[in-house]
């Protein structure tokens, strides 16, 4: 098992820890800066919408949360695949550490969407394809976390959860394209579309800043969680060795 590609270098936990220690403060700083700028532009400096009025500001939280919900899940599934196929211990740790972050983003997207839906649509919730598939995504995150901890043998739990993450990945394109494939109450994509964003620059900038803040926040918390998990595993390994020596 000689390191064959350059990517394998980062799969080494010790090297990863050293890299993470350098990246983490930068991610934290960038998160705080982008969050302050994004919130100022989004909540104070940007105009209201011609139809939605001030309610449009919910979008600055809702849309980046929903993007991150999908991004985190994709990451979790990719890491799970790597852990299953190549048995990289670090990939498993990354998938495990991503789950609660992704679940929080999904929860935030569901709640803010509901708060927006009541004044705009006239209802807190409908069972249309977009809303339902995102709710399923939330349950997939919860199921992943539950399954991971449901086994006495940690490696078996990790493997079962990784399979669940991979099965759930079919839901990701369904969420993304639900608004194009079927009639939904939820509006189609405003930013990522072929003929350019259908959103005025004065509203697009705060949205993109918030998206940047959410992404760097994910990197920051992910590194924090991965480091804690690696240290925790090392402590457990040392304890195990000590009990064996006695």
């Amino acid at each position, binding site marked *: 098992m000689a390191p064959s590609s350059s990517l394998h270098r980062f799969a080494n936990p010790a090297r990863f820890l050293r890299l993470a220690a350098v990246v983490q403060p930068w991610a934290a700083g960038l998160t705080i800066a982008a969050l302050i700028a994004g919130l100022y532009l989004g909540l104070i400096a940007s*105009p*209201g*919408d*011609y*139809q*939605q009025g001030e309610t*449009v500001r919910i*979008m600055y939280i809702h849309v980046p949360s929903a993007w991150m919900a999908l991004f985190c899940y994709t990451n979790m599934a990719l890491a799970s*695949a790597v852990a*299953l*196929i*190549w048995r990289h211990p670090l990939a498993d740790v990354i998938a495990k550490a991503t789950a609660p972050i992704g679940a929080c983003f999904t929860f935030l997207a569901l709640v803010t969407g509901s708060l927006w839906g009541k*004044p*705009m*649509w*006239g*209802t807190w919730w*409908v*069972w*249309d*394809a977009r809303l339902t598939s995102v709710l399923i995504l939330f349950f997939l995150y919860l199921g992943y976390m539950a399954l991971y901890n449901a086994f006495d043998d940690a490696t078996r739990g990790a493997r079962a959860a990784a399979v669940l993450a*991979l*099965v759930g*990945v*079919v839901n990701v394109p*369904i969420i993304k394209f639900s608004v194009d*494939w*079927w*009639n*939904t*109450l939820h*509006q*189609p*994509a*405003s930013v990522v*579309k072929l003929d350019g964003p*259908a*959103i*005025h620059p*004065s*509203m697009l900038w705060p949205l993109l800043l918030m998206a940047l803040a959410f992404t760097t926040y994910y990197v920051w918390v992910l590194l924090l969680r991965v480091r804690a998990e690696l240290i925790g595993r090392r402590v457990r390994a040392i304890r195990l060795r000590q009990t064996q020596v006695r």
Partner: protein
Amino acid sequence: MKRKHKRLTFVGLGLLLLGAAAALVLTAFEDSIVFFFSPTEVLAKQGELTPQRRLRIGGLVEEGSVAKADGGAVTTFRITDLTAVVPVVFRGILPDLFREGQGVVAEGTWQNGVFQATEVLAKHDENYMPPEVAEALKKSGQWQQTGAPKEAKP
């Protein structure tokens, strides 16, 4: 190396099969997954609609079609997808975004050529802009009807 490749093929094949299964299921249940039908679809399947069957119709509120009856408690209007038109009767409180030219989704039953709605939801479109920009677009004549179904756009 051999076992790694085996696992890779296994995961790849599994995902492929899963994707195909999901695609088949979603295509088969398309009629229950869609949140609403367009007026064209509703008129086409008028024959199979019983007065008990609940369904949703989505489209634009036709310009100049909104009228009030029974002291304002009952609203009548027409939903259009720019090809077909369906008359709607609704007793209740309309959402704030309800107006002529706006996308709406009405839930109710089909009663002899009239849609008796029990709930009316406003459908928002994907356009976000400040009021001044909307005004300017309307003035310059570049305004596209909001909430129009995708296929109806030029």
